[in-house]
């Protein structure tokens, strides 16, 4: 909520000229959700400090946002009035616009002069903590000192907060410092209080000129500044790195993507091999497997079911179902449903496929799923894949005993999966076989595992 800028360059009161704000006054500018005050705690020729103080109206903050459907309590009790966030960037742009844009009527020579500045922010929320904070500022040459806080001294077990008192020191033209703060404050916070559209790319290009393209964290800064909106970030990165070769993606996510593709490919190949024509993807998510299935005319009837309506909407648009020709459209159907409820719509398929679905159910609820799939839907074939817990040790970033996904309710070893599969096969009259999926480790097996049940 408070940003101070101090200089000791003689005469320090030149800061007043640079900022276009008289050191003896307290001035106020209006912002969308309140106002900001500018005052000088100290203004001598030896040392001059300008303070920019946010005065956010918490009630107005809520009423503004109440048009949406987000009705959680979060928006009523929140840290926005007390932190430096995109509101602070907006205040900088309003209160210090001339300075940031490099205009100084009375002493134009000051604009490009590098001066020693000390900047403090009270308090700056940083998603990713002190490490990231330093990653953002230190490459630009700032000397960074940080005061961190625990959440509540009465409850030390709650751990550290994400708030910091930050002091930055550097010798730079003021306009550069302001531009960098303008971009990096909301990047630290990783949030924006307003709608982010194409216009934000222009702002980023403008304020980032001369420093962003050489910043080692330019990608992260760009993505965060654009609120992680994929297409926007991609466009902006394209502009920033016009001359660079686009870097290869980070290794971990790529591997993850590949494993999932391997899984889906394996499932499709298996379905083709089995010669089935009607397939129900039970837990189709955003429809990746459905798209693979649509590519093969052998699959005459394809059903995608998921419990998440949102995922189905994405699948609907990704598969462009509305724009498919009649004959293609007739092959595919998406339904909202759940594997813990008996559902007639799942009957009558040659094969039912559950790719990485079961581990998202609490173990006691599996009983219901078993009956839904094997007793009521009862396709001729059932393909179930799930992660192989034994393989987890090969993921360096994964802590021992942790699951690969935060929503996983369990992860099974091969023996556990087979024990379950064998029981199911016995109980419902299927024959089951197992195979690994993905790159197989001799001892630990594949990263994922597949069971094929045949009636």
């Amino acid at each position: 909520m408070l940003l101070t800028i101090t200089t000791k360059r003689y005469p320090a009161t030149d800061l007043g000229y640079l900022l276009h704000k008289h050191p003896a006054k307290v001035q106020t500018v209006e912002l969308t959700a309140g106002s900001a005050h500018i005052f000088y705690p100290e203004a001598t020729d030896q040392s001059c400090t300008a303070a920019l103080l946010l005065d956010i109206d918490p009630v107005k903050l809520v009423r503004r946002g109440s048009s949406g459907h987000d009705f959680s309590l979060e928006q009523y009790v929140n840290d926005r009035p007390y932190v430096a966030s995109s509101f602070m960037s907006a205040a900088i742009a309003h209160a210090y616009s001339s300075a940031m844009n490099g205009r100084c009527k009375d002493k134009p020579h000051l604009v490009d002069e590098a001066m020693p500045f000390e900047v403090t922010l009270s308090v700056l929320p940083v998603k990713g903590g002190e490490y990231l904070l330093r990653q953002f500022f230190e490459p630009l040459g700032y000397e960074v000192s940080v005061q961190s806080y625990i959440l509540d001294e009465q409850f030390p077990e709650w751990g550290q907060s994400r708030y910091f008192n930050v002091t930055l020191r550097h010798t730079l033209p003021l306009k550069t410092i302001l531009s960098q703060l303008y971009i990096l404050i909301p990047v630290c916070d990783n949030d924006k209080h307003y709608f982010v559209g194409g216009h934000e790319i222009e702002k980023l290009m403008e304020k980032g000129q001369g420093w962003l393209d050489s910043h080692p964290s330019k990608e992260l800064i760009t993505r965060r500044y654009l609120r992680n909106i994929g297409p926007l970030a991609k466009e902006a990165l394209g502009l920033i790195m016009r001359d660079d070769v686009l870097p290869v993606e980070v290794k971990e996510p790529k591997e993850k993507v590949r494993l999932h593709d391997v899984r889906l490919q394996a499932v499709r190949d298996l379905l083709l091999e089995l010669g089935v024509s009607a397939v129900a993807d039970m837990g189709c998510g955003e429809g990746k497997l459905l798209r693979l299935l649509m590519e093969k005319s052998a699959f005459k009837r394809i059903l995608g079911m998921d419990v998440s309506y949102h995922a189905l909407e994405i699948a609907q648009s990704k598969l462009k179902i509305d724009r498919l020709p009649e004959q293609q459209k007739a092959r595919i159907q998406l339904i909202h449903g759940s594997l813990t409820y008996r559902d007639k719509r799942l009957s009558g398929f040659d094969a039912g496929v559950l790719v990485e679905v079961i581990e998202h159910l609490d173990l006691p609820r599996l009983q219901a799923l078993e009956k839904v799939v094997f007793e009521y839907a009862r396709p001729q074939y059932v393909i179930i894949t799930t992660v192989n817990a034994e393989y987890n040790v090969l993921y360096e970033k994964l802590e021992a005993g942790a699951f690969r996904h935060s929503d996983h309710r369990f992860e099974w070893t091969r023996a556990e999966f087979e024990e379950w599969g064998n029981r199911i096969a016995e109980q419902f009259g299927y024959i089951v076989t197992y195979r690994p999926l993905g790159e197989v480790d001799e001892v630990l097996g594949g990263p994922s595992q597949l069971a094929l049940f045949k009636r």
Partner: protein
Amino acid sequence: MTRRNNKLSHISIPELSLVLLIGPSGAGKSTFARKFFKPTEIISSDVCRGLISDDENNQNVSADAFELVRFIAAKRLKLGLLTVIDATNVQPESRKHWVQLAREYHVLPVAIILNMPEEVCQERNDLRSDRNFGRHVIPQQISQLKRGLRNLREEGFRQVFELRSPDEVAALETITRSPLYNNKKDEHGPFDIIGDVHGCYDELCNLLETLGYEVDRENATLISSPLTTNADGYTRYRKPVFVGDLVDRGPKSPQVLRLVMHMVNNGLGLCVPGNHDAKLLRYLNGKNVQLRHGLEQTVTQLASETPEFLESVKTFIDGLISHYLLDDGKLVVAHAGLKESMQGRGSGAVREFCLYGETTGETDEFGLPVRYNWALEYGGRAMVVYGHTPVPEAQWLNNTIDIDTGCVFGASLTALRYPERTLVSVPALEQYAVPARPIGYNANSVLSVQQQYDSVLNIEDFLGKCILQTRYSHNITIREENSIAALEVMSRFTINPKWLIYLPPTMSPAETSQEEGLLEHPAEGLQYYREAGVTRVICEEKHMGSRAVVIVCKDEQVAERRFGVTGEGNGVIYTRTGRAFFADKQTEQDFVARINAALISTGFYETFDTDWVCLDAELMPWSAKAQALLRDQYAAVGTAAGRALPEVVSALNQAISNGAPAQVLLEKYMQRLEQTTSYVKAYRQYCWPVESLNDYKLAPFHIMATEGKTWFDKDHEWHMSAIKNLCAGDEQLLLATPYLLVNIGNEESEQAAINWWKQLTAAGGEGMVVKPYTFLSKDDKGLIQPAIKIRGKEYLRIIYGPEYDAAKNLERLRVRKLSGKRSLALREFSLGLEALERFVNKDPLQLVHQCVFGILALESEPVDPRL
């Protein structure tokens, strides 16, 4: 039977029939239809032509128009409504479709022929400007009509009426509708429905006597029936209702027939036919039937009977109606059961179903046809009582019950008392026959049939918009978008639905107070109830924890038997959205064990004559459940404000000391600092570390249900005192809620409530809840709010934000609308009670789950969460 009596003045048709008007163009069908039927009962092909093409005479759209007529007719028949088809219908092939449709919906097809002279038809058409088809059409239609007239019976029409002149039409005064024979909705019981007797005369007499009837055993006649007073206040004689299969296999089939015939013929009892009875009739009628499956015994036993008796048996069985709808349609009795779409209908298929049920077409290892269990899919409102398939124990499944407990096979003869729903059995005196397939085959489970079936609920009732009926309130509509949200939550996050027999309703705050510095004050809560005409309320301290529903069973066997839950312990504690309260199963079970110990030691189970209980409660501390919220939201805001504001204050002080005019700003930010300090203090009140069970507090405030009973008929003082007794069983863990009774209108009493609230909130308490003294309170518009909360000033700081009570903030926050929240509270309240009523009534889980699912769906309605 074509009726050609001249000048018929009155005809009678079945109340549920598909009436086909048959006659050439100009015969006067539409006029006839309008005279005798309601406009909505008539579907005219001409009208349908008009609807789809703007021209009632457009012959080019005949096929589409016919499709539309058929579509409308099908919808009406599905609902059981008489329907009249107004089209020429002169060709047999066009009539064939209608007979098929009637069969599909098990209604009777009736033909009314308007066989008018050609000149009459021509004359009428000439008068109409819109009908300018050629003059050859009418003669052609008449000739088609005449060719087909003789065969209408063969075509499948059960009744055929023919009118041959305008005079005959004019002479017809009324068409009455007669109820189907199976319609005995006017009979309200009480009934004693008796399972398959199969010639077990002595057992039948024993059973009747156990039920309170007096029987002349020797003469096989009923001397007297017991009297019962129904809920409607009328005292009536009970009536035995037999589900059929009176004969075969057993030792005294003729005596059974004699006794049942005596009852039925004298209106003292009812009987539907069984397959064995039907086969006996075929034998008596001289048909070629095999003397197997016990018929051989009956035939032998009947050999010594008189021809008159045999004749009367023939008449009796022949006169039996396939099934009965009784008690306003709430009860259906049929030998092999009956699915909903066939109830109260008449067709060959219905009769077949009633006698034999459905089979899957497969045969089992004993060479017997595998019966398709229609009851598994039964979702009808009527209770269906049937026999036919011997079972080891009569068990409810989806509001149906098979009461054939295999008396003839040496087990027992069972009666279901209706409306009491109690079962009465007498043992077989001996085993008279050996079943071809062991009774109870496939039934080796600790769970009841219903519970096994309930292990997976059917999604059909939970998709899209649905309307739920509740006994304490109006019908409640669940919108599709809300069902969508609930399905995901139910599938991914909630506990086993078998435990989820209740979810608590949301609670509205009092109207906004205008008192300085306050948003809520008890005066408005008391005023609400005063305006609703309530004279007495109870104020209960509001605990600041998390709402918890607690179900405790005496032991795991009870959990199995009553809830159908295996291997999940003997109880559960869940949140108001149906999620497990404790992530750790062990903690939950330890907690349940402590409550169970208190229930046992305080004699709760005996006092309440139960072996389980469902409590509505608050579980503290708040920090136990709301960890993430506290860390990410409350403590976070506290830290940000607590660290930033002192810096601001110090900067402003420095500026002032250097002469800047920042005094006003300083005051403003000093106030903010103060407010955030209060805010941190407020949330800390409700947090304490939990190291063991002893650090929790559970404050139950309602005893929702126990075996066979809900407790909504008891007032809140009763609940408080019963809970106080329970809490004495574990004072470390259980907390009795302090309360105060208030007489509305008594100033002193009301002031005491206000003072108490001030005292509670000054000490850091959340506030209080005001409830009407009785659990269920209504005013002239229906249910009123079951509870209203009045929260303290400091507590509201953690709801509305640290700075909410600054004058200019408060002024704006006072603009808040409660109607949405209140309507939601009422809907959730009545659904919650309905769920419990259904559960204690042992309704199928599907019906309980509908209500609970509904509450969860309603929870996704957008309502200001600060209320």
